[in-house]
């Protein structure tokens, strides 16, 4: 199979959210002599971006397809990362979790998958994470970005979520060191909400979160 053909069949598999078919193309690509690095940067990342932009243009945003696409990208990337000839250069580090009172873990999961394929190190703090835990973990792991996922209006706007993280950063003089990004359903329906609760940025989906977060990292990292 030519490179163009590999790309086309991989795209088809991803667009059809067919994980088994996508893995088969990756195996074929390895047999054709593509390196794991090439597979990630020339196949996985562009195919994921293309598919995501096609999904996003859909008038009915289909989250299920978005999830499945991100899942394939993350699984193939993890598989290939194990085979990289040298450890990949890490762009930066993010601590991520769902806000206090919120157990919806899927959005965070998608963003983590997309970040990994962009070579961002992700420290997953799990669900129902207190503001103190976010700040402590960001300090401990020397992260640049704190990412907070909230799927319910009351956890997105609640005083124990992002608002408290901002207060802690202010009171501890850490605002120059970390950027705060939020995501989740409430922010999609009110695009100014992130400012009201003291975040630096928000993103509507995994791929745009990847872009926004890499920009935030570049803004903080010396």
């Amino acid at each position: 199979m030519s490179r163009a053909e590999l790309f086309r069949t991989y795209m088809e598999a991803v667009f059809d959210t067919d994980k088994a078919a996508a893995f088969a193309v990756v195996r074929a690509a390895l047999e054709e002599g593509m390196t794991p690095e090439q597979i990630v940067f020339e196949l996985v990342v562009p195919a994921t971006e293309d598919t995501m932009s096609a999904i996003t243009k859909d008038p009915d945003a289909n989250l299920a397809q978005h999830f499945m696409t991100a899942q394939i990208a993350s699984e193939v990337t993890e598989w290939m990362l194990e085979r990289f000839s040298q450890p990949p250069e890490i762009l930066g580090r993010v601590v991520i979790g769902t806000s206090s009172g919120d157990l919806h873990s899927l959005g965070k999961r998608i963003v983590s998958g997309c970040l990994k394929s962009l070579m961002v190190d992700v420290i997953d703090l799990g669900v129902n994470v207190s503001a103190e835990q976010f700040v402590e973990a960001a300090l401990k792991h020397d992260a640049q970005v704190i990412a907070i996922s909230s799927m319910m209006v009351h956890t997105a706007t609640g005083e124990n979520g992002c608002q408290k993280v901002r207060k802690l950063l202010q009171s501890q003089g850490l605002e120059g060191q970390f950027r705060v990004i939020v995501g989740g359903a409430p922010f999609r329906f009110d695009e100014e909400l992130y400012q009201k609760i003291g975040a630096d940025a928000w993103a509507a989906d995994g791929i745009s979160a990847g872009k926004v977060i890499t920009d935030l990292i570049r803004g903080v990292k010396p």
Partner: protein
Amino acid sequence: MATLLVGTPKGQHWLTVEGAQSLREALEETEARVPTACGGVGTCGACVVRVVSGQTNPPTAAERRKLTGEERARGLRLACQLRVEDDLEIELEQPEKPTSWVSIPLEELPPWPGLRPVAGPASYGVAVDLGTTRIRVSLWDRRQGRRIASCSGPNPQEVFGADVLNRVSTAQKDPQRGLELAGLARGAILKAIGTILAQELGDSGVQPAEIGRIVVVGNTAMLALLTGTGLPALLDPAQWQRAIDISPGDPSAWQADWHLGRAEILLPAPLAGFVGSDLLAAVVGTGLLEGPAGSLLVDVGTNTELALWDGSVLHVSSVPGGPAFEGAGLRFGLPAGPGAIAHVLPCPEGEGFTCETLGGLPPRGFCGSGLVDAVALLLGAGLLKASGRFSRPAEPGGYPLDPAISQSALSAGDVDTFQRAKAAQASAMEELLELAGLGWRDIRRLCVCGAFGRSLHVGHAQAVGLLPPVEEQRIELHGHAALAGCEWALLATDANAVLAEVASRARLVNLSLIPGWEDRYMAHLRLAPIPLESCRRVSP
């Protein structure tokens, strides 16, 4: 101050609106109120209205997401996003249906045997299943051990949002609203009792004073809203796996409220924040603990609750799948009731489909079982792909199953909502089996209760991966399992002990704390049969 002219099929209403509020809020206290599933944050799209004339704020991001350009050009808006600032004339696209109570056919409930007769003057009893969308009630003659009548009707709290936590946070933020919510639920239960006493029995029937016992089961949030207790605990996940106190406080206030002076009012304790007494009652109602190991009960709803009996332990969990199976959050969706498309059938002459509604009324949208049929038939006909994408780009209004009926259209967004709900349910079943050391093939009984009632087409549910492809005779559809279990408690000497016995066998599982559950969820998003190998027995 602005004047609002509202057109509904029943006529026109004039309203005066003071201060800036959303159209949904303005209509809430009126007969022309609009349905909502999200509590008015613009995510469900249920409150569509058409602006006939008047100046309005421009469509919000939420509206651009929920309505197509063509629909916005026709003047369609979401009532929760539209601010009433100026005189306005609007027309309701989907007016909220009037409250309606319907009889439950007695053959849909189990014929409970071996009853202990109750003596004394107040020998009648009432069992209540207080559901998020529907309330079910049975009246019993406990002296003769005879069920007199049963009925069900919509939960009037629905206008506060199909999302239960939405209602809880409403009640928590505003005590006045909390009282109102409790009042609505108490009023609805009273209304159901009144309906049974009046309509089913006529004037010669039972008098309220003869009712000696009322047992209420429900999910924990509904019980907390009913009693006004335990609300803060429900919003704190740290409390969700603990028992939450929802005791009714002073029962004499309720007795007076309900004019049931002799009635002992019992609210058996729910298991935890996310597993209510309704699930315990459904376990009793289906006789799950008397069945073989590998008996799985799935109570389908906005929050689907599950119980797996492995012969010694009852593994219990719940999963938020979203309200799709209750008909909410869809472009054209409604709870199972008159006018809901409950079945879709392929036309015998080949091409096309026909839609059958409950009550034989003109179709107004899909309920859960009709949605399963529609997705399965479109998938089978190659019009829909396993990814959830339509083979051809869908029309702006969605794909109409019956081209003559616009409310029979299924949109790409509806398919997405369905996929996420069914993935949540299938992955939760799988996780629970795996935790019990069982596999899909070990299922001996699969009791499906809740939103689908008895209308679910099992083959279709299997084709889209909602239910596992186990032998069809192992799958049972129960219309009113929680009510049946509540009846059993009503008839027992000690009602609380019946459900406490089930609770003592239960082991709670919080899926959101199990690593790897999300991988299962992702794997179940595709519209394809569940591979039976995806979960195997792990111990002999």
